């Protein structure tokens, strides 16, 4: 979600070991080890040790019953953090994996993201940012347990070893559960030794996810499933056009409908509060609301794209300038230009947005699937008129997130808190699918015009990219950090600003469009569109040079070993160059995003103008990895997410109104359209990278390039429509 360069910049500030572990005596006398990063120093005494359990630090609780609970500060939205982060801790703790459980962390500064400074989940960063954090927490707990055992046996700690949830001295054994009481009385060590990676027992193994059982018997609790005594349900009428507000409304019919308790205007629209969802929904649909006309009443995406095309003809804010692309273009032996266009996209999580709020006179509790806990809690407190510490936010399972549940305005939490103020009872706001799709915060539409030239020998000599689109960072908590001193949003150009190909003259420019459509990060963010344009255009240059697209890339990536690694692996596993049945073709793409490298080879056929993806071979290099099973699942999911956008998805506006409402007008790839997907992981010891998003960007260009291989036609606009191919 956030550009990864920040990670290296911030991390280079260095986490000093002596600052890393600080010990605080909690109010109840238990011990907490806090993790201090980047000025975050407040430590709450939220949970502590008790007679039956011991919390050596904020991330783990050990029970006298031998059960070990890992407190996870990232949200589980499918990407596997309730398994991968506990693996890190459990390995250092030498715990018995069968005793490991997970628990979502409460909102507290000690659970802030070590890089981004707030409690949140995004940027494919949970594992690599938590790597040290969770390993340190496990190692610190282990040291305390060893010290407790050593004391009981009256031996030196160095004479003890740990294995599978117990401390040993020779043949003597004390289980971790047996040591809970003694360990709680000890002072945590100032320093802990982490394992040599060769001694890992869990890290690197394809362990099964810990959260599967509850997700296959109906017991996993998502935000929409939360039930409170006396709770009412609300459905909200929101403006059909962004920027409009309620002028007046007639609720005569709605008010008299069964179950309806209250109908109130709130800043987001008109809320119908009823006993059940269905009653609220039916009454909401019976409302007659008159809206103040905003500035978007004449907004059309077709005119917007026309405007983008015009703007791309002029120079934009300079993002990158190597050499002189203009002159090199002018003197190139052959040149080509192409304009790529991608539409607004909806995150379309399977679980529509929802939020439960229980607002009392001097406290407030919120239950929701949040990716942005610190921000959501602060916004709920602001609306409730309470100090932040009076608001608790409980993170449930997320039925998909993809960035939507990290809303910079906390839109779904703010409006639910407004409804709760009016309801006088615990309230659950549920968005219908249509509400969710029409509610904004989309991946922005982008236009990306590229001109390139080759010399007489077919070497690429010039590349000029111009992008036009909205900024997603404006108005977010990250705006100051991200946009400082820049005339463009780095999230708009990520993935082309670091064009890796050995081309001597490269210019990248960006025009920022000011449009009243709320936009936001969506899985793989800028990379979701830059990879499409860049990797399709590289293919076009290869064709211009009459070279094989894989070999053409190889030649330009000679000094980029990790790009080459995934490119070669994907090509080799896909059998690049081997004949395919008639009517089928292959396309290739390679990209770096979220600290990981990926390459895809897609095999497609085209029948009666319909593209069918048969196979996708994916290579991924995410450096040192934690769980290859989860990596494969995320890569499969990323490829399918990218393929859905490439093949089907587009949001369009006509006279300010969004034309799409549900899965029938904004389709998702289905079982009968799903290709065979293979994932191949590059083995190395490089620094860990992300996995939730890197699988997305290559899907669209690999598919589009494969369509060219079959049809000889170029796809320059998503979703793919062969009638528009050139």
């Amino acid at each position: 979600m956030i550009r990864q360069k920040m990670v290296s910049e911030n991390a280079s500030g260095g986490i000093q070991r002596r600052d890393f572990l600080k010990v605080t005596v909690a109010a109840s006398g238990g011990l907490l080890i806090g993790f201090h990063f980047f000025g975050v120093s407040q430590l709450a005494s939220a949970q502590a040790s008790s007679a039956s359990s011991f919390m050596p630090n904020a991330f783990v609780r050990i029970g006298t019953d031998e059960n070990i609970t890992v407190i996870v500060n990232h949200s589980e939205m499918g990407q596997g953090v309730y398994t991968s982060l506990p693996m890190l801790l459990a390995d250092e703790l030498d715990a018995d994996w069968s005793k490991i459980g997970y628990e979502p962390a409460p909102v507290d500064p000690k659970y802030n993201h070590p890089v981004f400074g707030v409690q949140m989940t995004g940027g494919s960063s949970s594992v690599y940012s938590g790597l040290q954090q969770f390993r340190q927490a496990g190692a610190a707990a282990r040291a305390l347990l060893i010290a407790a055992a050593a004391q009981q046996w009256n031996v030196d700690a160095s004479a003890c070893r740990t294995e599978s949830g117990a401390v040993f001295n020779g043949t003597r054994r004390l289980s971790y559960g047996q040591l809970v009481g003694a360990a709680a009385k000890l002072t945590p060590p100032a320093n802990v030794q982490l394992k040599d990676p060769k001694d890992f027992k869990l890290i690197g193994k394809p362990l099964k996810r810990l959260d599967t059982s509850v997700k296959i018997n109906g017991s996993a609790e998502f935000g929409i499933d939360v039930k409170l005594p006396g709770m009412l349900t609300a459905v909200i009428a929101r403006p059909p056009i962004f920027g409009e507000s309620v002028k007046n409304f007639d609720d005569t019919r709605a008010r008299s409908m069964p179950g309806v308790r209250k109908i109130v205007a709130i800043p987001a629209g008109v809320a119908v509060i009823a006993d059940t969802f269905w009653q609220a929904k039916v009454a909401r649909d019976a409302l007659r609301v008159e809206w103040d006309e905003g500035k978007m009443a004449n907004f059309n995406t077709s005119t917007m794209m026309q405007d983008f095309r015009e703007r791309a003809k002029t120079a934009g804010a300079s993002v990158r300038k190597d050499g002189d692309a203009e002159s090199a273009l002018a003197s190139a032996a052959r040149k080509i230009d192409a304009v790529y266009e991608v539409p607004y996209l909806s995150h379309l999580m399977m679980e529509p947005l929802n939020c439960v709020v229980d607002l009392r006179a001097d406290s407030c509790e919120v239950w929701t699937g949040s990716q942005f806990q610190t921000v959501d809690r602060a916004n709920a407190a602001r609306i409730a008129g309470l100090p932040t510490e009076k608001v608790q936010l409980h993170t449930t399972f997320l039925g998909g997130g993809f960035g939507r549940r990290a809303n910079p305005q906390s839109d779904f939490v703010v409006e639910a808190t407004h409804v709760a103020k009016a309801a006088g009872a615990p309230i659950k706001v549920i968005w219908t699918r249509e509400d969710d799709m029409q509610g904004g915060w989309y991946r922005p539409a982008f236009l990306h015009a590229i001109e390139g030239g080759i010399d007489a020998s077919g070497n690429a000599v010039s590349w000029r990219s111009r992008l036009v689109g909205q900024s997603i960072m404006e108005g977010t908590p990250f705006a100051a950090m991200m946009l400082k001193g820049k005339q463009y949003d780095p999230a708009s150009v990520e993935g082309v600003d670091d064009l890796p190909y050995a081309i001597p003259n490269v210019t990248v420019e960006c025009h920022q469009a000011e449009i009243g459509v709320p936009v936001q990060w969506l899985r793989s963010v800028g990379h979701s569109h830059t990879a499409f344009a860049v990797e399709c255009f590289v293919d076009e240059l290869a064709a211009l040079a009459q070279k094989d697209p894989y070999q053409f890339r190889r030649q330009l990536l000679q000094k980029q070993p990790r790009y080459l690694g995934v490119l070669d692996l994907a090509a080799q596993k896909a059998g690049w160059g081997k004949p395919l049945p008639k009517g089928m073709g292959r396309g290739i793409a390679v990209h770096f995003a979220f600290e990981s490298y990926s390459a895809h080879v897609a095999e497609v056929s085209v029948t009666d103008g319909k593209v069918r993806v048969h196979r996708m071979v994916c290579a991924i290099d995410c450096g040192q990895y934690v769980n290859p099973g989860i990596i494969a699942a995320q890569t499969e999911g990323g490829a399918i997410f990218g393929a859905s956008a490439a093949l089907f998805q587009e949001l369009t506006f006509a006279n300010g109104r969004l034309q799409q409402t549900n899965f029938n007008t904004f389709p998702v790839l289905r079982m009968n359209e799903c290709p065979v997907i293979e994932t191949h992981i590059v083995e190395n010891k490089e620094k860990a990278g992300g996995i939730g998003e890197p699988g997305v960007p290559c899907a669209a260009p690999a598919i589009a390039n494969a369509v060219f291989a079959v049809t000889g036609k170029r796809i320059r606009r998503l979703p793919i429509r062969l009638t528009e191919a050139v």
Partner: protein
Amino acid sequence: MIGFSVNGKRVDLEVDPSTPLLWVIREQLGLTGTKYGCGMAQCGACTVHINGEAVRSCVAPVSRAAGTSVTTIEGLSPDLSHPLQRAWLEEDVPQCGYCQSGQLMSAAVLLREKPAPSDEDIDEAMTGNICRCGTYPRIRKAIHRAAAMVAKGGAR
């Protein structure tokens, strides 16, 4: 008053007969394993069985359930012992998990009707169930695995 059985238990409810079965199951009966995804039989997240037949409960009025036997995900097995649940565990199928109740309920009908389903059978039975996380390849494998378990006599 509308009466039917849910997971083997008789219920009698005072409810507007046009209310979708989904919301009666979720809100009146408190069985929240059955999910809302689209409200128009597009995504399959709300799939339950009525007399053994897979039904999109978001568009089925509760009146349709009157006098029938309804099974929800909570009734698929009491202890994760259904061959599909065992196969789902083996293949590590779910990601976010939200669509999985519906996937399992659709797959359960398929497996009963076609104990050795082909890929085409799986396509036909499962195409009405959307998964945004992209677990389709694992669902396919898990269905084949469950079929193999049943063939070996592993079924309950």
